[in-house]
């Protein structure tokens, strides 16, 4: 008997599976929460060429190259990554594809791991490319597979939009087999791929015609469907919001939209005519709502449902004054537990010194952004990938070079390769006095330890060509370049002092592996008799160091939790009373 194989997959795993089943040949991405596991899972399918590209623009452009020669290609990125890749995306919207080309954007409503809450459904309209929005893992797989076929059929890039609660939720997926598609090969076509104004003017007209055809297709798309229930309440919804709405309003009629640009306007009109009251329940911006209102249809939407933050069943219930559970106990006095820099993190010493020297520090994106939190307080700004470098240059140029004696820019190794290098060249070229600190922990730590050019390893673990940040800096014309061990506090402080006092651009590479990449050293211990409770070690903000009350002393003394300590020795170097020692000496 034929049996469909089923498996629990996350939305991201399902996209990877859909790419494989859909005959995808080529995948490139830069890691970013919540999108990272898409490429990490595609890596498991040997039929697909995969690479970690240095940034999202590069990833999309190499995928476009693969499409030019007729290969099916996919790239995946977090929502803000699509800002970086927006330049090629808009023009690829004109050129169309040869091999199917799919861009996956993973938005982060609620900003669980992001700097903003942008709703990338806007990009579909802006770049004039079709948009698919799955509501669960099974649809994520089906839509990915379908997107390759539709991309080729309609000659357009497809945008597939997930959100954190799709990417990182799991559900049951029906598995299929891989459809092998031959790579078509390269055929020169400059009217299609060389966007001289003369060509682009024609392509723009092609785009507008294509959108009409896509709108027709959207009317019949099987996953844009009406589910009739009671007709006094109709709900139009898409993505994860559909799932929440189904639970809150189990009896209502639903128009579940999945192909959400261009919208199936006739289907929407038909549904609206049949129901008495119409709600649009969508997470983020009122995109469906505005378009439906512009069609002259009366709907209730963001006047009731919050625009900021994530939706969930409770939020939707509250929006419509439905009965919600009242906690039997008021929760106050529950101390927060924010994320912290790991015990033994090699970046901690650098932040300690920056705080100690009272420097202003422009910051960047990565786990090291946590250096901004007390007690380290070692970061003043964080805007987007690479902005540490350029923000510092702008501050110095606007305020004068005296500022550079108190100003550093802090960037991680992977972020430096992503978008730091152009800013560095800019500072050297414009005779700046930038002091750049590269925190090189030899991995892309926050997203789960992906390799990058500085590691010399490739996506599948094979050896690539290693490119060192200090060599890049020298190549960019930086005269002051030094590599320092950040676990040596004295050396770290001296290097930072030398750099800020140097006239011209400086680059310090603080190199020490992320604690997840090495064996921990023996843990440290405090001798409570020697400790006088001065709390200097607490200024490191290490989660392993706490205060403890002992009988023989009035003031509490320091205590190091052995299960957390990684033996980085920073507190030992800091202690003025020789009260901290390594457990290996016991």
């Amino acid at each position, binding site marked *: 008997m034929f049996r469909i194989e089923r498996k629990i997959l996350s939305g991201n795993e399902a996209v990877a599976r859909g790419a494989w089943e859909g005959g995808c040949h080529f995948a490139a991405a830069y890691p970013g929460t919540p999108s990272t596991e898409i490429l990490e899972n595609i890596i498991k399918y040997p039929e697909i060429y995969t690479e970690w590209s240095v940034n999202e623009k590069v990833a999309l452009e190499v995928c476009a190259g693969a499409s030019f020669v007729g290969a099916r290609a996919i790239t995946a990125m977090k929502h803000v990554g699509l800002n970086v890749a927006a330049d090629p995306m808009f023009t690829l919207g004109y050129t169309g594809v040869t091999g199917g080309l799919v861009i996956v954007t993973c938005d982060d409503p609620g900003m669980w791991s992001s700097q903003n809450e942008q709703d990338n459904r806007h990009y579909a309209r802006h770049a004039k490319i079709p948009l698919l929005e799955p509501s669960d893992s099974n649809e994520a797989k089906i839509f990915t597979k379908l997107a390759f076929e539709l991309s080729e059929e309609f000659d357009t890039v497809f945008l597939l939009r997930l959100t954190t609660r799709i990417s990182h939720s799991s*559900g049951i997926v029906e598995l299929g087999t891989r459809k092998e598609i031959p790579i078509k090969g390269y055929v020169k076509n400059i009217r299609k791929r060389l966007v001289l104004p003369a060509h682009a003017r024609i392509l723009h007209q092609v785009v507008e015609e294509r959108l009409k055809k896509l709108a027709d297709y959207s009317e019949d798309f099987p996953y844009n469907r009406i589910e009739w229930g009671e007709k006094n309440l109709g709900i139009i919804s898409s993505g994860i919001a559909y799932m929440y709405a189904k639970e809150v309003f189990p009896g209502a009629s639903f128009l579940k939209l999945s192909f959400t640009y261009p919208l199936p306007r006739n289907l929407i009109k038909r549904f609206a005519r049949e129901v008495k009251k119409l709600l649009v329940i969508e997470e983020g911006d009122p995109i469906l709502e505005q378009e439906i209102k512009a069609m002259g249809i009366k709907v209730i939407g963001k006047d009731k449902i919050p625009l900021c933050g994530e939706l969930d069943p409770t939020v939707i219930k509250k929006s419509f004054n439905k009965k919600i559970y009242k906690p039997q*106990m008021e929760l106050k006095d529950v101390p927060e537990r924010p994320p912290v820099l790991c015990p033994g993190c090699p970046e901690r010493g650098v932040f300690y010194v920056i705080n100690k020297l009272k420097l202003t520090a422009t910051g960047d994106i990565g786990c090291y952004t946590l250096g901004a939190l007390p007690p380290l307080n070692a970061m003043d700004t964080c805007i987007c990938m690479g902005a540490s470098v350029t923000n510092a240059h702008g501050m110095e140029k606007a305020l004068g070079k005296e500022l550079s004696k108190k100003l550093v820019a802090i960037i991680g190794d992977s972020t430096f390769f992503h978008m730091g290098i152009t800013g560095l060249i800019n500072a050297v070229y414009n005779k700046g006095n930038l002091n750049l600190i590269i925190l090189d922990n030899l991995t892309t730590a926050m997203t789960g330890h992906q390799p990058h050019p500085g590691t010399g390893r490739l996506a599948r673990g094979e050896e690539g060509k290693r490119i060192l940040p200090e060599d890049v800096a020298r190549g960019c014309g930086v005269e002051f370049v030094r590599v320092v061990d950040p676990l040596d506090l004295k050396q770290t402080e001296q290097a930072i002092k030398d750099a800020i006092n140097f006239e011209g651009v400086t680059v310090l590479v603080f190199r020490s592996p992320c604690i997840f990449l090495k064996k921990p050293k023996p843990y440290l211990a405090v001798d409570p008799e020697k400790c006088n409770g001065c709390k200097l070690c607490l200024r490191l903000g290490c989660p392993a160091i706490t205060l403890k009350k002992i009988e023989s002393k009035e003031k509490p003394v320091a205590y190091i939790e052995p299960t957390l300590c990684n033996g980085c020795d920073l507190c030992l170097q800091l202690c003025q009373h020789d009260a901290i020692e390594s457990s290996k000496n016991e």
Partner: protein
Amino acid sequence: MKSKKKAIESSNNKITSIIICGVGGQGILLSSDILCTAAFLAGYDVKKSEIHGMAQRGGSVITHARFGKKVYSPLVEEGGADFILAFEKLEALRYSYFLRNNGTIIVNELQLPPTSVLAGERDYPANIIETLKKFANVDVIPAQEIALKLGNVRVANVVLLGSIARYLKFPEELWTEAIKENVKPQYLDLNIRAFKQGLSIP
């Protein structure tokens, strides 16, 4: 993986909602994976939601898991959880508003002070267990102790999983299969022993 679809055909569409919470690094994601695999093998529709990235760095972590005949939302609503499985006491308190009336909180006998407490700015709440007992069935599990006796404190997560399995009534062989699906072969034996220890808590 074959699921036993027949098992639920006779049952109604009661959805079981579980919140699993604790501190980043305690193995919460693995436990919720095993739990959902077991529910899937028992023939249920399953949804799970978790958070990766920044929040995992020693921060508060919460996973939602739901199973039944047909599950839409991967998120549990406030006051909608049948069970809370808390890997740490403060986290049990933090997410207690998810528990339904007469729900059960299974809580690890473990106290991990957050940074504000370490720095002496805040106090770790006193008498958490007594507070929770005022409105919930509370089941305190010494998972660290049990795991240490097994030789590896890191399997406290699977001890806790065993302790919630006492309430879920899936056949034991489904759990074993679910553990096998999610754990590296070299750690399988240890994890199964940890699970059995949790399961046999009276």
